[in-house]
């Protein structure tokens, strides 16, 4: 121990401050700083003004961060003492996350859809059904605390897609997840469901991060470093199989596959997606998926690319199971949010094909797919927030019967999102699936693509079923009504629709951008 300490102290005297390259880290600093300011707003700004102040702050910050990220485009470098990558995939995915976060923030900001107020409890700590709760609701209090949580979570996502060592990735993972656990539990309506979702999400999320960090410890034991490039070098130089390496890869993959909701680590997703407030579900289903796949791609491509032949067979099985379970169970769902949750599990399976491809084309395809899937997801959940009856959102599939006859525009918009999920041509989802399948085929995963195409066709059946229910059945007598939202939700849904169509009809600029951005720095 002593020699280690003296060695450490000896180094301190000669130790130079690493060049952090603040310019490259600026988007992260802006987000983190503004998240802290947002906490201060909660503490010092009078209750009546808080919502307005928070809205200006959050949208200003997200747009500023997007501009800063866009300004870095074309740069390939390491920043922050080598632990943050500023490269194509990081910047593309950060931009995607920020666009999706702006759309999700529009849904979160909505206050007119529900006559009682926004989607969040007046006070999260008041007991459901208690006198306190009614009093806080009567006073019209809002849980504006959701905004600082939201900003912290977005910051974590940006770190998670750009971290180049396992420690930074772990910190990013937690900064992303911890606020989400809380945001899942503060719904205004059906609060017991919401709290249950928060508990399940928290316990399983913490469980998976335990796997992640223990896997990181094993890889550190193997390589003597947590740097992804260093681990890759150690794998190249190793002689023969190594127990620590094997354990590390397995545990790390389990932790990441939990986050992307791949089978058999998917059980939390349907419950959490159903129980959380719908705007938060849209945020989780889109942004978390992008961030988790960003980190999974980086770790698998950069650190474990040399072990490709060892982990690819396991990922084949997981990809097939994920597509199969997601598709089959989505067929049997009667709740629209649950159905979208299983659909997002199936999409995780399709995306895993791009991970298996381990090629530049696979990376570009995955990034395009994530963008197309994300905008459609937020739009679809946005529509779910509008279909309401007296108890809140009417999420049972039967109550959506005949929606197309009463509100053709809303039902038509939802149908476009479903067609994009199904991968029908002229939508972003088709181009994304096509690109992923092409990259998978080029990498030699022919049979996997056959399975994926068959399951994709099966999936089209349950998306079609919802369209049939909406357009070709008669409305219920006491069915739900479609509320007229404020501009917030309207803009979110409209931009989701516009981007879904644009990505389907004019995909080339976006495909080119993804292709140019498809090399990891190390």
């Amino acid at each position, binding site marked *: 121990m002593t020699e280690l300490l003296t060695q450490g102290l000896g180094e301190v005297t000669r130790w130079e401050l690493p060049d952090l390259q603040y310019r490259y880290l600026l988007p992260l600093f802006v987000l983190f700083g503004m998240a802290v300011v947002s906490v201060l707003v909660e503490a010092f700004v009078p209750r009546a003004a808080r919502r307005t102040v928070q809205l200006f702050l959050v949208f200003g910050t997200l747009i500023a961060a997007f501009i800063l990220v866009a300004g870095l485009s074309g740069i390939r470098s390491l920043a922050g003492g080598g632990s943050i990558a500023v490269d194509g995939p990081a910047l593309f995915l950060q931009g995607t996350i920020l666009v999706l976060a702006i759309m999700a923030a529009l849904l979160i900001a909505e206050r007119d859809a529900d006559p009682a107020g926004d989607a969040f409890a007046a006070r999260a700590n008041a007991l459901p059904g208690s006198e306190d709760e009614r009093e806080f609701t009567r006073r019209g209090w809002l849980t504006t605390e959701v905004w600082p949580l939201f900003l912290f979570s977005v910051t974590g996502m940006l770190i998670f897609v750009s971290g180049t060592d396992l420690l930074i990735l772990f*910190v990013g993972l937690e900064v992303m997840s911890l606020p989400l656990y809380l945001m899942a*539990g503060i719904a205004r309506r059906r609060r017991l469901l919401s709290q249950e979702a928060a508990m399940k999400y928290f316990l399983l999320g913490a469980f998976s991060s335990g796997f992640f960090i223990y896997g990181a410890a094993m890889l550190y034991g193997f390589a003597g470093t947590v740097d992804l490039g260093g681990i890759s070098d150690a794998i190249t130089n190793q002689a023969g199989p190594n127990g620590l390496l094997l354990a590390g890869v397995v545990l790390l993959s389990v932790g990441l596959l939990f986050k992307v909701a791949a089978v058999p680590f998917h059980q939390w997703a349907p419950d959490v997606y159903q129980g959380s407030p719908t705007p938060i579900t849209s945020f989780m289903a889109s942004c978390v998926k992008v961030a988790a796949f960003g980190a999974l791609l980086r770790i698998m491509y950069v650190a474990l690319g040399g072990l490709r032949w060892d982990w690819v067979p396991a990922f084949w099985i997981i990809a097939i199971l994920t597509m199969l379970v997601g598709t089959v169970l989505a067929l049997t769902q009667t709740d629209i949010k*649950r159905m979208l949750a299983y659909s997002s599990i199936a999409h995780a399976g399709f995306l895993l094909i791009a991970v298996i491809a381990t090629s530049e084309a696979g990376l570009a395809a995955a990034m395009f797919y994530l963008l197309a899937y994300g905008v459609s997801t937020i739009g679809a959940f946005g529509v779910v927030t509008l279909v309401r009856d007296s108890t809140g959102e009417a999420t049972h599939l039967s109550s959506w019967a005949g929606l197309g006859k009463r509100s053709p525009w809303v039902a038509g918009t939802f149908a476009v999102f479903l067609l994009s999920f199904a991968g029908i041509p002229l939508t972003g989802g088709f181009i994304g699936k096509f690109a992923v399948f092409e990259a998978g085929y080029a990498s030699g995963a022919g049979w996997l693509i056959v399975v994926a195409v068959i399951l994709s066709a099966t999936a089209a059946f349950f998306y079609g079923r919802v369209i049939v229910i909406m357009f070709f059945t008669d409305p219920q007598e006491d069915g739900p009504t479609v509320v007229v939202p404020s501009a917030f939700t309207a803009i979110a849904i409209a931009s989701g629709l516009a981007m879904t169509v644009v990505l389907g009809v004019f995909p080339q600029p976006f495909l080119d951008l993804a292709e140019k951005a498809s090399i990891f720095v190390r």
Partner: protein
Amino acid sequence: MTTEHYVVLSAILFSIGVFGVLIRRNAIVVFMSVELMLNAANLAFVAFARQHGNLTGQTIAFFVMVVAAAEVVVGLAILVTIYRTRRSASVDEPNLLKY
């Protein structure tokens, strides 16, 4: 005592944590098991830092402790809310979300 002993101990602690999460029914105990998993990782990090002769592992242990503390804050907030609503901290009882 070589590093191997510490790593084996940390693997045992990690396994106890995993089994605790899988078989215990009280949310607080499940949560404590998760903390055990994180601390098992800490032990492994520190042991490997000694073996490799660099300080990375020791530094990471501090980060993991901070993250664990943050997790306690968030986790207990959620569990206390559930307990006040249901008067129980069982992970089986909240079962409204299914199928």
